[in-house]
Structures are given as structure tokens and as C-alpha cells.
């Protein structure tokens, strides 16, 4: 049994195709593993009941998958981590999940997340925080914390999540796995519950870069139901690059400061050396506007969220409270009781930023910054193939450590937000272990590589070569910590 679970998704797929692995046996093993969830990572699991019927696969030939609870699944509870969608069973299935089902990947379950994907620690879930499999006193990152934790914790071979400002990459880094945010538009957003529509993007959380490539290949493509989707021309093939010769990696001067954890910095510098060992070249690049990324992001994302979340009014589906009074009272009570504090904070911020008289000063200004950041990247990519940074400024922090300090929480996205604003693909791969500031057992550190829009194949090829070079093989609970 343990051997089955040790296979990567790609290895399992190849074994199933070759007839060396019985799909039902393999899926059953994973269902059993998922049932042992002690991390509060799953909000719903397929236990063979009536609920999962609409999302059953005809013939499994791809590893079963865990799906962030932000993707609609017909007949299966879909909450987006919010009280306001408790008990909601969507009447339709998201394009991403439909593609997985059509490819033959059974859905293991729906994973816990920060409410409406707003958060960097998973502590904003209405259903309780997810625990980091490396140290259950620490957060798994967020908002796709459940998806990262199930992959790292041996509760699923792979998973999908969503990334708006770092929500795939940062939890992947905190949990020591691979997380890819594709180019905006590579994967359909249809059925992906919206947080910030111009930033949200679906992507894989996997053990290996090859698994990420396999999954991206299944998910990507234009969808007639999403006008902003375009897909990746030529599709995605499995990476096989062995070195990095001839490739230039740019380190942004503005993102190389010393105001983040020394352990993270050490792993980052060591990874730059590894790149050089593999034949790659390190250069400095300038992204002068990127330091304003967080400010722009925390205007644009809440602005869009304030509009996207206005539909949760208790009229048509989901939770309803205060229905005995008048319309306004029902709206207010439903939303007061249904949304958590972080969601309310962002709705307030976003509503304010879009208000008449403030629009130009906030939303208009933020959009200008966003354009500049995109131009910065275009300029940088004229001289280098990739831009590299640490994924997050620290390793996984303790549960409750930052919940009273939203700004410090927001700064977790410092390295990941610029790529989101620019709409370009970025991957986080585990690069080593580091001791947290203030001491304690060693925890994983992520290394982020960003590429020009739709250069996913090149990005995956380079990440694969680096992954082989690093040879990261630490696992939660195997004595590293």
C-alpha cells in the first residue's frame, strides 16, 4: 500500500496506461489515505455516497485528485471556505473539474481554504484552520492551504488550487511541494468562485514539476464559457531538460533586500549557486514598481471582491438570516453572519476604493501601478529568461501568530503579488529547509521562478532541471524537523 502512495501522479499514470497498476486499487488506496485526514485539510471527501454521483468518472486512468473547495462541483457541497455557502450544492460543475473528470481523474475530495481565497494562512476558513503537515502548530499557508497540505501530508497525490496574489505558490512553499500559477487566461475560470476576477487563476499543487506539467496539460485551454481564457498554444509536454545552460535568471534588485528571514535568504542564495552549477547565468534585473505591488494589489483585489461577493444576499441560495424583516434587514443580517472578518474587511476596503470621488485616487492609481509592473517585467525579460525570488519572506509561521496584524499577513505576498498583477506564470519549487526566525525544527523554503506570459513550457523545463539539481527529498515527519 505504501508503495502505491509513493508513486508520483505521473508514475502512477504511466503504470496505469501500461497496465502495471490497477486504477481502482490505486484510487482506493488514496481514498483510504484521505480518510485519515488529521490536518482539517478536507471539507468533503468522496465516500462513495450519492453526493459524488454527478462528478463520478467513467474510467479512471489519471491519479485521483483533491480539489480546492472554490471549484463548483455539481451536487457536491461547495463552500469556498465560507459560512455563507454552507450547505450549498451547485447545479453545475466548473470547467477545471470537468476536464479532470473527462481525463479520468476521480475527485478525492474538496479541500479547506481561506474564506473566498482571502488569506495567506488558511486561518480565515469558516471551517477551522488547516494544520501544516511539517509542524501542526504552524499554518500551511493560504489560501490554497488545504490543497497544499493534502499533497505534502500524503492525503492526495496531487491537487488543484487557485492563486490570486500567491495562493498556490506560498502554501506550496510552506508545505515543501511544487505550486504553479499559470499565465492569466491559461485555464478557464468558469465555475471557479470569484475573488478578484482579473487576478484569479487555477493551477496545480504537486509533488514534482513533471506532475505539475501533466496536470497543466489537462487543465489548460480556451473555454467558450470564459471569454478571458485563451489556453497555451501548442499545449504542454512533460519537461525533460537536464541543465540550465544558455538560460539567464534575473534577480530583481528591489526584491533582494535583507528585510526577510535569513534562513530563507540562505536557501535562496544557495539555489542561485545551484543554477550556476547547472550552467545557468545569474543577472540583476530591475523591477522598480514592484515594491508598490502589495499596495496596488490590496486596492484592486478588494475592489473586485466587493463586487463579486455582492451576490451572496440570501435571496437565491446559500445561507439566509433575518428573513423575517424587510429586504435590507435580510441582506444585512445574512451578510453580517455569513462572512468572516477578513472578507468583511476587504469588502469595506474595496467598496471604498470604488466609491465616487475616490475611484481615481485608489482604483485608477492602482491600475496605473499594475501597468507599470507589467512593463517592468517586459523590460526585464528583454535581458533574461526568468525572474527569480524567494516564494515567501519566511517559512511557515505559527498558528495565530499573524492573525491580529493584517498588514504583516499581507506582506507574505510581497514576492508573489507582482507576477499576479503582471498576469505572468510563476512556479514555486521546494529548494531546501531553513530554521524559522526564533528557532525550531527546520521547515521547507520555496524558490520562485517567473517567466513571460504563456512561456509555461520553458518555465517547466527550467524548473524541472533545477528540481533535479536540488534533489529536495525531505518529507514531513522524517526527521528533518
Amino acid at each position, binding site marked *: 500500500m505504501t508503495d502505491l502512495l509513493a508513486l508520483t501522479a505521473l508514475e502512477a499514470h504511466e503504470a496505469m496506461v501500461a497496465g502495471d497498476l490497477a486504477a481502482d486499487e490505486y484510487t482506493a488506496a488514496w481514498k483510504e489515505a484521505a480518510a485519515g485526514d488529521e490536518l482539517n485539510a478536507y471539507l468533503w471527501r468522496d465516500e462513495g455516497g450519492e453526493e459524488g454521483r454527478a462528478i463520478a468518472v467513467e474510467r479512471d486512468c489519471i491519479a485521483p485528485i483533491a480539489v480546492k473547495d472554490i471549484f463548483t462541483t455539481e451536487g457536491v457541497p461547495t463552500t469556498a471556505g465560507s459560512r455563507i455557502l454552507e450547505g450549498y450544492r*451547485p447545479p453545475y460543475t466548473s470547467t477545471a473539474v470537468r476536464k479532470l473528470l473527462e481525463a479520468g481523474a476521480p475527485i478525492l475530495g474538496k479541500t479547506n481554504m481561506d474564506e473566498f481565497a482571502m488569506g495567506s494562512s488558511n486561518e480565515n476558513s469558516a471551517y477551522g484552520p488547516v494544520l501544516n503537515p511539517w509542524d501542526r502548530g504552524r499554518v500551511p499557508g493560504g489560501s490554497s492551504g488545504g490543497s497544499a497540505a493534502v499533497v505534502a501530508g500524503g492525503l492526495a497525490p496531487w491537487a488543484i488550487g487557485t492563486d490570486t496574489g500567491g495562493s498556490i505558490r506560498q502554501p506550496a512553499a510552506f508545505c515543501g511541494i511544487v505550486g504553479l500559477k499559470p499565465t492569466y487566461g491559461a485555464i478557464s*475560470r468558469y465555475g471557479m468562485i470569484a475573488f478578484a*476576477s482579473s487576478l484569479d487563476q487555477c493551477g496545480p499543487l504537486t509533488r514534482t514539476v513533471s506532475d505539475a506539467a501533466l496536470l497543466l496539460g489537462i487543465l489548460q485551454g480556451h473555454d467558450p*464559457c470564459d*471569454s*478571458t481564457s485563451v489556453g497555451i498554444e501548442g499545449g504542454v509536454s512533460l519537461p525533460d531538460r537536464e541543465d540550465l545552460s544558455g538560460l539567464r535568471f534575473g534577480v530583481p534588485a528591489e526584491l533582494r533586500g535583507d528585510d526577510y528571514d535569513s534562513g530563507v535568504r540562505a536557501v535562496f542564495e544557495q539555489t542561485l549557486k545551484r543554477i550556476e552549477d547547472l550552467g545557468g547565468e545569474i543577472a540583476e534585473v530591475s523591477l522598480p514598481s514592484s515594491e508598490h505591488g502589495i499596495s496596488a494589489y490590496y486596492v484592486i483585489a478588494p475592489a473586485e471582491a466587493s463586487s463579486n461577493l455582492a451576490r451572496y444576499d440570501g*435571496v437565491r*441560495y446559500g445561507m439566509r438570516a433575518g428573513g423575517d424583516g424587510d429586504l435590507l434587514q435580510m441582506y444585512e443580517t445574512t451578510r453580517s453572519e455569513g462572512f468572516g472578518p477578513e472578507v468583511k474587511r476587504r469588502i469595506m476596503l474595496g*467598496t471604498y476604493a470604488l466609491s465616487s470621488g475616490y475611484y481615481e485616487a485608489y482604483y485608477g492609481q492602482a491600475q496605473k501601478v499594475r501597468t507599470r509592473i507589467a512593463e517592468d517585467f517586459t523590460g526585464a525579460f528583454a535581458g533574461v529568461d526568468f525572474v527569480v525570488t524567494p516564494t515567501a519572506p519566511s517559512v511557515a509561521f505559527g498558528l495565530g501568530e499573524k492573525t491580529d496584524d493584517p498588514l504583516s499577513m499581507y506582506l507574505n505576498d510581497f514576492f508573489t503579488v507582482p507576477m499576479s498583477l503582471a498576469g505572468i506564470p510563476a512556479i514555486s519549487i521546494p529548494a531546501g529547509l531553513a530554521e524559522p526566525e526564533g528557532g525550531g525544527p527546520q521547515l521547507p523554503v520555496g524558490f520562485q521562478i517567473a517567466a513571460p506570459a504563456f512561456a509555461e513550457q520553458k518555465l517547466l523545463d527550467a524548473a524541472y532541471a533545477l528540481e533535479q539539481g536540488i534533489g529536495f527529498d525531505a518529507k514531513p515527519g522524517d526527521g528533518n524537523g
Partner: protein
Amino acid sequence: MAELEAVIGLEIHVQLATKTKMFCGCELSFGDEPNVHTCPVCLAHPGVLPVVNEQAVRYALQIGLALGCEIAPHSIFHRKNYFYPDSPKAYQISQYDIPICGPGRLGEVRIHRAHLEEDAAKTIHVGGSGRIHGSAASLVDFNRGGTPLVEIVTEPDLRGAAEAAEWARLLRETVRQLGVSDVNMEEGSLRVDANVSVRPAGSDQLGTKTELKNMNSFRFLQRGIEAELARQRELVEGGGTVEQETLHFDPASGSLTSLRSKEEAHDYRYFPEPDLVPMAPTEEMLREAREALPELPAARIARYEEMGLASDVALTLAADPRTSGYFENVVEAADGIEPRVLANWVTGELAAALRQAEVEGGAADSRVTPPALATLVRMVQDKKISHGSGKTVLAALVSEGGDPEPIVEREGLAQMSDSNELEAIVEKAMSENADAVEKIREGNNKAIGAIVGAVMRETKGRADGGEVNRLIQEKL
């Protein structure tokens, strides 16, 4: 105080007659059972996305081209945010600073813009007055929610209630002839709101405007504007000032009630719709829209006026494409007769004959073929038959069709050519109406009618009225 001038602009919502809704695949409908034409998209379930209806874009392009609007190469959808149960997303997808159609003109009125958006669902308030306040419950029918709309906004170029209603009729005819909407005001597929203000005549400043809603016929539109103009005039002449507000017109009482004041106006927090890419009509779409344009009433009216038709006759003909087509066939068949004369026959004598015979439909549907009418008019012009006989023949054509000549022959309506015979009849009529002759001699010229009438009776209308008159005068 200087006289107050009315300044009126209109905002017209046109429901497009596409097969499906603006952003989803649900069928459009009217009068079906509530909430049967819905899907996750138009009910705003979590995770859904809008997709623009291409046919709606094509229709909007046709409307824009018909109104002479500039077409934006890239137009943008915005979200207009507001909470209300008729708006399941809590925002309407509309257009804001870059609409698909920019400035244009229809007749004497400049068009400010025309843009694409989606209709709200229908709310029904039960128990009470039918409005939300005081109702026991509110029901929502999402069948209408998401119907494609084109909103047309004029410049404030109208100067009176009747003028506004007349222009709105021209607009309706224009849109109707494009075939892109049912333009039925009662069913709400055409909705006209009016922005009304007054100012001292000759001023180039705009006064404070109010917005009038719920005028679901042209008559109510005119009455609503009249009522509001009277209210504003009285207010301003009494030294008061107009407050900016939105008013609801009650057609039953003719009264206006305030829906919301300026302070209560919504902050819609418009921002670009991130779920849609900019709308860029292709060259081919533009070409197809241009080719699909029929000749529109405004252009046709201008052409008819150039042909010498009176404005009202031109308007009557141009309003209905089938009648105008019929008229043009008559002109062609008549070859050389003045179009003005033919137009008068189509809108006058023929229309009256059809009414008289209670024939359904217009001239184009009648049994009177364009060549038959042309021949008949020529016979009257050439004095082969009298004008009165012409009407008799027309009545026969309406009921039996065919050509006028056999009818003239059969009914013995050919104009009397023998002036001796006519002279004798005139003399006889004068002697039998001696009192009338006496009155004429005393200066009462109207009395001549009795003698002419007698002659016409005797000749069964075959006599030429002018000739009869001449003979009477001669004999006096």
C-alpha cells in the same frame, strides 16, 4: 421674467429580439411561466462567467449605424453595482465611458450615445399598491433578467412634450424597421425615460433636470412631460428652484411622485468588468451590419420631401416600409405623373376606400395593384373620368381588383365629352333650382352647390365639376 423654454432629452431602452440572453444561452420569452428561462449564469450562481451574445452586438451595431453613430473600435463593459433582488449578481453589466456607439443623429435630435447592457429581472410586489412600499411580499421572475438591451441617450435637443413624443415615434419606427426589436411599449420592449428641465428662452445654460420614468405609451410620455413641465414652470415662475430627482409617472392619475432625490441617488461604483475582454467588432461585422440596413424612415422622409411630397404625407408613407414600397411601385407604374398627386391618392382616397370597405391591412395588402391605381389616377388627370368617378372606380377596385378601364366602361363613368348635352342638363338644373339661382345673383355663391349637385346626380358623376361651374357662371 423671460418666457421659460422646455429642454428635454430622452433615454430609451430597447430590448433586442435575439434568440438568447445577453450573457448566457437562456431563451428570451414574454409571458411564460415565471423562472423557467434561467440557468446558473443568469441566476448568478457562484463561479459563473458572462459571455457576450454576438447577435446582440450585431443588432447594436445596426442601431448605431441607423442613428449615424460613430462605432467604437474597442468598447468596454463596466459593472454597475447595486443591491436589489432584480439584479442577482448585485451588479448590472453595462457600458460606461466607452460605449459601442458614440455620437450620432436622428432627424433633428443629436444622439449622445447608445450602449449594450442587460435587463434586470422582473419584481412583482403583491399585497398593496403594486409598489414595494407597503407590499406584503415581493416575487422575482428571472425570465427577463439578462435580456439584451440597447440604451439610447439623446442630447437635450427636444423643446416640447409633443415634439418629444413625435421624435420617440420616429425612433421606434426606425428600430422596428431594422427588425432588431419588437419595440412594444406596453410589453416593455421599448421603454422611454425623459430628462426634463426648463430655462429662460434663448439661454444656453441647462436648468436642473428631473428624470421621468414609467411612461409606457407615447401618449403617457407626452402627458408625463407636459405635467412635469407645468410643475417646473409653476415652481420657477413662483421663485422656487427645481430639485434634481427621479419621478414616477402614474398614468391613472396623471401625477408624478418622487422615487428618489439627489441625496438618495445610488453610487454605482462603476468599474471595468474583468470577466469580459474589450468588444472589438470586426470589419466583417461592420460591413454586414451596414448591408443589413434598410432605407430608414428619416432618409425616406427626406427623399419624399425632395420628390415634392408634403411633410405629413411623407411621414405617413415612410412610417411603414410596405406602404412606402407600394407608393414607390405606383410612382414607377404611373411614369410621369407627379409623385405628390400619387401620394395623395395612396394616403387619401385609397386609405379612405380601404377604411370604408373595412379591409384589413394597408394598401400593400389590398386588391388594388400599383399599376391599376396608376392607370386610374392618369384617367382622372386626363379628364377621362371625373374625380368623383375616380373614387367610385377605386371602391370597385378595392372589392374586386382588376383594371380600372372595364369598370369605367361597365359603370358608364366615362366623362361626358358632348358639351351640348351637358349644357342642356345644366340649363335644366338651373330652371329646376330657381331659388338657388336667385341666391347666387344676390351674392351667395355657396348656393351654386345645389345646382352642381343636381347636374352630378343627373350625369351620375360623369360630368367634369370645373366645366359644370363654368357653364353655370356663363348662363348667369
